[in-house]
């Protein structure tokens, strides 16, 4: 059941909504030069920060479609009846969501880095940091999606929940993208690990609590 759940998430992601965060990510990266001016040196210096902010906001887009449609349509109930724990469902959703979100985000980060003239030697570090960060963001998105499932104005609430919780990822991730020797990458990885390990339990409990 877990394998088919992951496959279902990936299929539903690439069936359309997975491209939305990518488009959003690139749009944010394109907008910044309009706002701060076309100074190449300045853009290169702030590129990492811009790309991280863009990644954070892009991670917010799928939140509403991750849990709520399945809750409303009884898919979560049917899985529970078949004896699949809500935590397992949440873990499978995190894995499937990351597969539809992470690799595309990294690909668009390469494009964004070119657009913003990120110094080329920084690109591998950015991709490693963003890759690890995207795991944490995927876990966070599923947890927040479960917490806000069934609520009115869930989208706005999801932003208020997700963005503050993503601050540690942002701090260490952006630092790790800029400087390889600071140890920030390890701290970012530990934050991501904590999120990936904790999110299934948070999401599982939220799914159970939302059952009426």
């Amino acid at each position, binding site marked *: 059941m877990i394998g088919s759940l992951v496959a*279902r998430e990936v299929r*539903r992601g690439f069936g359309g909504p997975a491209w939305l965060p990518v488009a959003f990510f690139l749009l944010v990266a394109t907008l910044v030069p309009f706002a701060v001016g076309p100074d190449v040196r300045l853009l290169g210096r702030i590129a990492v920060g811009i790309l991280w902010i863009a990644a954070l906001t892009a991670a917010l887009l799928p939140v509403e479609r991750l849990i709520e449609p399945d809750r409303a*349509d009884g*898919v979560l*109930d*049917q899985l*529970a*009846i*078949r004896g699949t724990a809500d935590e397992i469902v949440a873990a499978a959703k995190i894995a499937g969501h990351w597969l539809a979100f992470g690799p595309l985000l990294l690909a668009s980060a390469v494009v964004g880095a070119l657009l913003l003239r990120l110094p080329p030697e920084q690109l591998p570090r950015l991709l490693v940091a963003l890759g690890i960060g995207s795991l944490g963001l995927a876990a966070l998105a599923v947890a927040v999606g479960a917490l806000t499932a069934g609520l009115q104005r869930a989208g706005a609430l999801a932003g208020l929940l997700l963005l503050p919780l993503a601050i540690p990822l942002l701090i260490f991730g952006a630092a790790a993208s800029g400087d390889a020797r600071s140890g920030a990458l390890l701290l970012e990885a530990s934050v991501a690990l904590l999120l990936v390990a904790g999110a299934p339990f948070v999401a599982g409990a939220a799914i159970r609590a939302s059952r*009426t």
Partner: protein
Amino acid sequence: MTALLRFDRVTCRRGGRLLFEDLGFELRPGEALQVRGPNGSGKSSLIRVAAGLLRPESGAVDASPLALADDSLALDRELPLGKALAFWRGAVADALESVGLAELGDVPVRLLSAGQRKRAGLARVAASGAPLWLLDEPANALDQASVERLAALIDRHRAAGGAVLAASHSPLPGMWRMLELGE
């Protein structure tokens, strides 16, 4: 023979309102029980308690492996019906045949009518192979021919040693033991 479903002094309260109190019954292989009562009397809540989706305030519920068909379809709208059902495993082709949807296996779920969706939910239950069926308003939106197919489906399941608990405010086809709520 042991019961497939047993309610032991089950009390259910929702939104502060007492729906049923100290309810006890057993459902053995081959039996069919219809929960009857006016709107809001707790029929659907009883089904969800039996399915383990809702925790009763007190009492114990013992259930064998079960399958549930309620208002929620739980089938991916963008997929053809056959594929959407296959996600839930089981003998999909036979189940589609038994609810008269064999012809529609390739039609996307989103294009099905209300009655066809109801039958698709029944097909998922039939495909599950679970001994206990929980059906919430199974005859809603069904035409006459489909109601007869539903009766035949339930008869076959009972003859094979299964049991059915259905909630419905209107009479269902076939012979049912009755449980009245909201009196």
